[in-house]
Structures are given as structure tokens and as C-alpha cells.
């Protein structure tokens, strides 16, 4: 039972890792290999910003979000838009290169040591929930994940920009015939993804630590969550993240060194048995 709860809470964090990845792939078929590294970079940015706000994490987070949004817009407009096309290679090599650049840059700026955000009482705060005790911070993260997923889902289904996202993803050429400027729509999608990345980075720095070389691991978790859940659906990604969190927690409970490995095995099993994921969205 405890595994279940801990697994779901962990899944909340993984969901935040993976929403940005899912979003960018959904809108423009771009696989961001640097996803994890951007999350870590956001964590470090939060660590650097926190002193400006006297350690007030809410303010730090709120300040970071628009910065991340702008950064994402710029990165897409200036760099990633150039890599889009039928061939997946340019976007993969460029994001891979970015991953290396970010890791080394962070190392130069912050040294290889892990850093964390001072969370104070929040790190030990508990809530009694139906018989068991649940950490407040992980619960907060799960809540944030739920809100983010629901928010994205609503955005895509009900708003004009969501329509634009879906249209440009379906058929870029015809969308441009309607007056849509694909390069700007893509940039907006990435900006949104970066805001989610910033949220994930702040929470990661709050929950544990961030170190320059942590990025790739987070990418793999994000990726596994997306694949397990099924591509094309944000709620699918949420469920996939839950499944991953549960698998890792189960493995961890058997042996502390087996957590991540268990997650990999579940991922491979899903890939083998249900390659379209647990909740695939079929396109018309």
C-alpha cells in the first residue's frame, strides 16, 4: 500500500518531466533529447534565483516561469525551427549537442556538486491521509501534475491556440494556407513546454538535488512515461508516469539498486506487448 502511494507520488514528478516532451513531439514531431538537461538547468536557475527572493520558493517559481517561456520561444525560433522536416536526424543531433553543451556549461558554472533548493519545513511536512502518512511536498507535486495535465488537455481541446497546435501538427501546409504562421506556433508550443520544464526543475530541486550530469536520466524517465502511456494523449502520459513511478517504487522496495532497472523492464514489456502504449490515441 505504501508502495502504491509512494509510486503515485513519484509518478507526479515524472509526469511533469514528460509533459513537455509529449507536447513538443505532438505539435512538431520533434524529440527533444535535451529535455532532461533543460529541467536540470531550470533547477539550477531556481537555485541561483532563490536568494533574490529571500528563499521564497513560490516567488522564485513564479519569476522563473515567464523567463522559461521566453527562453523556449527563442530557442525554437532561432535554433530548433531550422531542424524540422521529414528527416529526424537534424533535430536529434542538435538537441543531443544541446544536451552536451548544457551539461558542460552547468558544470563550469556550478561545479559537479549537487545543489538543492532550501525547502525548510516543507521537506518533512506530512499529511495524514486515510490511515497513512503522506509527505506534503510530494502531494503538492502530484497536484501540480494533475493540474498541468488537465490544463494542457483543456488548452488543446478548447482554445484557439490548441486548435492551431492540432492543425499545424496534422497538416502544416494547409494550416499555413489558412494564415497560420507555423514557425510562431511551434515557438509557442516550445515556450509552453519550457514553462512545464521549469516547473519540473523547481520541484526536482526541492524534492532532491540537481547535478549537471543528471539530465539524461530524467530524459529517459520522461520518455518511458510517454511510451508506456501511449503517444498522442496527455492523460495517457499522466498514466504512463504513474505506471513508471509505481514500477520503480516496486523495484526499489525489493532492492534499493533495482528501482530504475524495474522501470526499464516495465517499459520494455509495454513496448513488446502493447507497442502503442496503454492509452493510445488513434488518429482519424
Amino acid at each position, binding site marked *: 500500500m505504501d508502495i502504491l502511494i509512494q509510486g503515485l507520488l513519484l509518478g507526479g514528478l515524472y509526469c511533469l518531466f514528460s509533459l513537455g516532451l509529449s507536447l513538443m513531439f505532438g505539435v512538431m514531431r520533434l*524529440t527533444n533529447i535535451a529535455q532532461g538537461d533543460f529541467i536540470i538547468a531550470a533547477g539550477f536557475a531556481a537555485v541561483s534565483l532563490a536568494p533574490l527572493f529571500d528563499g521564497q520558493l513560490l516567488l522564485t517559481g513564479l519569476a522563473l516561469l515567464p523567463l522559461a517561456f521566453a527562453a523556449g520561444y527563442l530557442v525554437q525560433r532561432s535554433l530548433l525551427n531550422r531542424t524540422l522536416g521529414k528527416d*529526424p536526424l537534424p533535430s536529434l543531433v542538435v538537441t543531443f549537442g544541446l544536451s552536451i553543451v548544457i551539461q*558542460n*556549461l552547468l558544470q563550469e558554472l556550478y561545479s559537479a556538486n549537487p545543489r538543492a533548493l532550501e525547502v525548510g519545513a516543507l521537506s518533512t511536512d506530512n499529511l495524514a491521509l486515510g490511515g497513512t502518512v503522506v509527505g506534503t511536498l510530494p502531494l503538492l507535486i502530484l497536484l501540480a501534475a494533475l493540474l498541468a495535465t488537465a490544463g494542457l488537455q483543456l488548452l488543446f481541446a478548447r482554445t484557439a491556440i490548441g486548435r492551431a497546435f492540432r492543425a499545424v501538427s496534422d497538416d502544416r501546409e494547409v494550416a499555413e494556407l489558412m494564415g497560420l504562421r507555423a514557425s510562431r506556433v511551434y515557438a509557442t508550443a516550445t515556450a509552453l513546454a519550457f514553462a512545464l520544464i521549469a516547473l519540473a526543475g523547481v520541484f526536482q530541486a526541492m524534492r532532491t538535488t540537481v547535478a549537471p550530469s543528471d539530465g*539524461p536520466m530524467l530524459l529517459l524517465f520522461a*520518455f518511458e512515461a510517454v511510451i508506456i502511456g501511449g503517444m498522442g494523449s496527455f492523460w495517457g502520459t499522466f498514466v504512463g508516469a504513474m505506471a513508471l513511478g509505481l514500477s520503480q517504487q516496486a523495484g526499489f522496495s525489493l532492492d534499493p539498486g533495482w528501482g*530504475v*532497472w524495474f522501470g526499464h523492464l516495465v517499459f*520494455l514489456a509495454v513496448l513488446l506487448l502493447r507497442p502503442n502504449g496503454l492509452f493510445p490515441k488513434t488518429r482519424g
Partner: protein
Amino acid sequence: MNAIVIRGSGAARASGWLAAGLVVAAATLPWWGEPAWMREFVEIACYFIFAMMWNLLAGYGGMVSVGQQAFLGLGGYVMLSLGNFLGVNPFLAIPLAALVAALAALPVSRLAFRLQGGYFAIGTWVIAEVFRLSIANVPAVGGGSGTSLTALRGMSRGMRENTTYWVALACVVVALALVYAFLRSKQGLALQAIRDSEVAAESQGVDVARLKLAVYVVAAFGCGMAGALYFVSAIRISPDAAFSVNWTAFAIFIVMIGGIGRLEGPIIGALVFWALNKFFADYGTWYQLGLGVLAVLMTLYFREGLGGFLHRRLGVELLPTRRILQSAGTPAATPPAPTLTLKETLR
């Protein structure tokens, strides 16, 4: 109208003789060179072979993999196991390990091929991580901290280093010959047809799925060979060293600098990489950062790489793998159009 298929050129034949001469000259290195040079060569040879396989997969097969280190590490560990536990001569174990890696590629492909494009790339990375974590849990080969190759203990150091060097030279030649022969064969031509247009190739009866599997297996063989060779030279192996994603990072750099989709690309790229390594590796993080930036810039602005640039400027292709159709008897009204290379289709 007679049609002639041109497969080579004067420049290619000349470079063939030059290459043979170079190999013979290189083989004599142990008699007049320093041991450090031989060790350096072996190391660069491994990076080169690995990069060639990445180029085969991505540049010709259209499959971008970030997890080829799975087969490299597997080759290393199989070689070590054969040597330490079964008493097989480690040098003989190299081709055996490569074979095992190639065989392992078959079940792995069943998983990996369920994904496409970018997700295929990350999926291969996950699989490499599974290999790493799994082997790190095997105490017989040292678990997470690794172990040493004991099977060469009987050999004198000089003998070992010389033999390793010659074996490395042989591996480079074999890898080059293997890939070159494959690309010039009918399968290779079909592969390039797929690269130019998968749909068109399929309509011509090309079995795309089987061909992609063949490329994947050949690449795994090469990666396994590189891994086995590397750890014969290094003597000490560990999961982190054997399955590190840095292998792929360097391969990507080598191939993008030298020119993807060209056979001479990795050769040029490996030379540039070796030179950069020699002069700048001491700068640590800045050096690696620079490599990353360079790879990004090359991909964005100079996708044909140095090899493609040379080809365009000098009109020379040292290792041609395309076939050019020239009809005899009819004057060329427009210049003959060779099959499009990857870079041209990317424009």
C-alpha cells in the same frame, strides 16, 4: 542506346592503391614508432569503427541510434568472459564477441523497431541502459566496479601492445572493407534507394524491413568488434565505461564533421577528432562543450560535412558507393544526374 554503369573513377582507384600502401606502412610502426603512438592508434581505431557503424545506421539506413554503445559494451564483456572464463585467446575472442553482438541485435531489434524516428533513438538508449544496469548486477564480471582482463597476463607487454596494434589495424581494414562491400552490393544499392525514398523503393520490390534489420545487425557486429578491441587494449572494463553514451556522442561528432552518408566521412572526422583531442582535451568541460557546439553548427549550417564539401569543390569521391548511369552514343544535353545523396535530399 547502350547504357554504361560507372561504379568507380580514376581518383577512387588511385586512393585504393594509396590506402593499401598506407596499411603496409602502418603495419611496420612497431619497429620504428613509440608504444604511445600504437596505443593512441588503437583508441582512435575503436572510435573510428564505432563512428563508421553509426554512419551506416544513420547516414545510409536512416536510423538514428543513441544506444549503439549497448553492442560495444556487450562485445567488450563477451571478449573478457571468453578470455577469462573459457581460456580463449582474447585476440581470437574479438571476432567471436562481434558475432555475439550481431546475434544479440536480433532480439533487440524486435523491441527497438517498434519505435520510429526520435523515439527509436531514445529507445535504443534505454536498451543500452538496461544492458549497463544488468551487467552491473553480475558479480562474476565485477558488478558495478568492473574487472580486469586476466587472459593476457602471460604475454610480455611489448608483445601485447604490438599484437593489439596489428589486430586494431586489421579490424579497421575489415570494418572498412565490410561496409564498403556491403554498400556497393545490391543490398547496398537498395539501401540507398530506401534512403532516397522508402515508398518508391518498396514499390520496386525492396524488402525494407529486412534490409533495415540487416543494416542493424551489421552495425552491431562492427560495434561489438570495436568494444572487444577497445577493452583488449584497455585491459580494465567497467559497465560505466563500456556502456557510456559518450561513445555515441563522439561518434555523432566524428560523423557530422566528416560528412554523414559518405564512406570517407568517418575517416575525415576521426582524423579531425584525433587532432582536436590532442590539442584541446586538457580543457576538459570547455573542450566537450566546444565539440557539442561544433556538432550543432555543422548540422545546421554545414550538413554535408567536410567530406561533402570536398566532394563538391574538388568533384572527387574517394570511396564511391553510388552508381552513375551514363548512356553511350547520346550526347548529354543536360549533365547526368547521379542518384541524390542524403544531403541533397535534405536541402
